């Protein structure tokens, strides 16, 4: 009967945001790995790198050299670097850019604190990654090899830090990375269902801000101590002298 057929009204979505693809895809795994990798190993490395290793700069060139030598002497150091640092950072950054690209920031109409943080997390991540690429390139792959000549480390960093533009880049990179890490931990706790309540999140935000202050504070102190020393040698011979002098 022609007039009374009642085909189902259209339910499929031809335009607009698609409905949930319940139980399909693997974005969940990637997204959670992204979140986790930001803390372990990337964040943990960041903490070690700034708060433990580079803080040795505060104790002077020799202490710094000793720390670099210690790190360089770790077994399978290259494998550790590749699988513990570089690949996780590349994944975290690459997927992070993908997340950034898919988000649609709307700060103009909704300039609320959480929304600012959302935007800032993306910008700090982007800046930190740019910095890390440059920093790894110059420190690890150009100039004197610091695994072979740990004593040249202090001087090599100094060379960059005495350049005002690079110095600024260091500071911005440091602040971006430590903010991204600290607020990332806060996000992690919220998004993994650890801090459920409003007040718990508020309190944990203070903890994360303290962590940011700690990392960026120590980082800035290290940077300052690089700049407060005379230029140290970066040639192999000079490096050997630094390595064998006493820690002050």
């Amino acid at each position: 009967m022609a007039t009374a057929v009642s085909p189902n009204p259209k339910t499929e979505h031809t335009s607009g945001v698609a409905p949930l693809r319940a139980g399909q895809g693997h974005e969940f795994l990637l997204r959670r790995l992204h979140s986790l990798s930001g803390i372990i190993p990337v964040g943990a490395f960041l903490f070690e790198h700034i708060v433990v290793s580079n803080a040795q700069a505060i104790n002077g060139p020799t202490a710094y050299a000793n720390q670099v030598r210690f790190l360089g002497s770790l077994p399978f150091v290259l494998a550790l670097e590749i699988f513990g640092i570089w690949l996780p950072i590349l994944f975290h950054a690459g997927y992070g850019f993908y997340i950034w690209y898919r988000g649609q920031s709307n700060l103009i109409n909704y300039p609320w604190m959480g929304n600012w943080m959302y935007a800032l997390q993306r910008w700090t991540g982007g800046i930190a990654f740019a910095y890390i690429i440059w920093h790894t390139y110059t420190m690890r792959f150009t100039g004197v090899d610091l695994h072979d000549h740990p004593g040249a480390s202090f001087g090599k960093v100094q060379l960059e830090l005495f350049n005002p533009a690079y110095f600024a880049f260091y500071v911005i990179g440091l602040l971006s990375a430590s903010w991204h890490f600290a607020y990332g931990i806060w996000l992690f706790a919220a998004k993994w269902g650890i801090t459920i309540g409003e007040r718990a999140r508020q309190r944990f935000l203070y903890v994360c801000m303290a962590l940011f202050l700690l990392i960026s504070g120590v980082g800035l102190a290290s940077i300052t101590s690089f700049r407060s020393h005379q230029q140290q040698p970066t040639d192999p011979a000079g490096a050997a002298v630094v390595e064998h002098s006493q820690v002050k």
Partner: protein
Amino acid sequence: MANPKIIVVGGGLAGLSAVIKIAEAGGDVDLFSIVPVKRSHSVCAQGGINAAKNLKGEGDTTAQHLDDTVYGGDFLGNQTPIKEMCDAAPAIIDLLDRMGVPFNRTPEGLLDFRRFGGTLYHRTAFAGATTGQQLLYALDEQVRRYESEGRVTKYEHWEFLSAVLDSNRVCRGICAMNLRTMEVRTFECDALIVATGGIGAIFGKSTNSVVCTGSAQSALYQQGAYYANGEFIQVHPTSIPGEDKLRLMSESARGEGGRVWVPKQKHDKRDPRTIPDSDRFYFLEEWYPKYGNLVPRDVATRAIHKIVYENDLGIDGQPMVYLDLTHIDRHTLDRKLEGILEIYEKFVGDDPRVHPMKIFPGMHYTMGGLWIDFNQATSIPGVFAAGECEYQYHGANRLGANSLVSCIFGGFVAGPEAVKYAKGLQKSPAGSNGHFDAEKKRQEEINSRLISSDGTENPFRLWRELGDTMTRNVTVLRYNKSLQETDTKIVELLERFRKINLSDKGAWANTSFIFSRQLYNMLQLARVITQGAARRDESRGAHYKPDFPERDDAKFLKTTKAYFAPDADEPRFEWEAVDTSIIKPRPRRYDMAK
């Protein structure tokens, strides 16, 4: 044989209740709604739902619920179906509870109950101050479950235009219009349930939602269905006057201890908070010591009218009185009434926890509706009705928190009855389906006439005139002379409707076109209400004629039944005896125990 195919029009509490019962009984349902069903007007019900669960040790019984309902309805309600509803109510509450409605709880984890108007028992289960919303959502979720199983097909943003009747005037389907594409289509069914709610728009501003135009009921009435007790219009005593609508201030505000008062001194300019108790006139408590602020709605409404218009004691001379909650502690208010207090705060701007609210009666509910028998069947074979759009359960006046239970109960009856009817239905013989094409053609002709009409009248302005007249003359106080004038006015509006000019001639989501179609049906139904009121020379429940202040059982203990005379293009009336088989009518008074 194939599953019975039922069409349900309207996705509020009654419609969804029917859908659930049909799906459960193995029927297939097409559900039509103007709005996504989750946005139906049922969400606006605030206070609660009645059931004599007797969880407060008061000795409440379903017989007592029946008595309160019949008495509150001034004995105009048919007692057999009301009894069935009251008897079914406790199990309905249990079912809703099982469906996850977040009813308020006692410390022991049981359902909490509050008192409502027209009863002395704590009989009203409630979920904060948004009970209707919570109930509708629970049913909506169950229907969504059936929808995902393929038992229910929703047609949202479709408007019911008419029933498709075969040559024997038996319903075989419906004709509906897609509100976006404007496509007119017919749909086949074995039985039709209309659950299209209220008619508030006929009164212009009311507490009803925008979609509550009564258009579907009116269309069926114009197709031959009886419309019963149309003159019984409940005016809610406490609404918040607004520019776009009247917003309800739930009876639960009084149920939780809210007190209605005016300053004793005329045009007292003082801040209400500074007026001492001795200068306040708690007129409901004084006039009705037994029920106090919880007298039934019609009684409270007339008392407020009297205070304002006869005693000239309205706040600052305006038609408003105070509804005061400020003596109740903030925590209790937030816990029990937060939702409704927010409404006041949001739309008026004052905090009712601090400032007494300013309220005035507003059109709220129609007790009348499509005539149905005790099985929810209308006078058109194959058409059933449930919810506010039918007349069965509230007599001359509805008690607070009885509407939700009547909607669900009505749907629970209508669903299975429709299935039963469908199973016994003779299929129309093959090749006799011309009535589908004919109905579609008839509706398309109405549409093309309307869209090409090039007069000078704006439909929205006609509507405002209708609303003003109806509110002034056919609500709280009714005089035969002004009722007569109102009917004349409606005839004039119907005349002017022919000279309508739609500023929008578009063929896509044309809201003024859609509205105009509804307006025509509103005008037709307005005559039923007005003429019904004119014919009833007595006062009963919500219907009050100062010239006939007493109830007259000898002449008017009868249901008004209107039917449409197509040739004369006007309503005709009959009377039908009321079923008083259980409780003998007695005078209804709230100034003393009944």
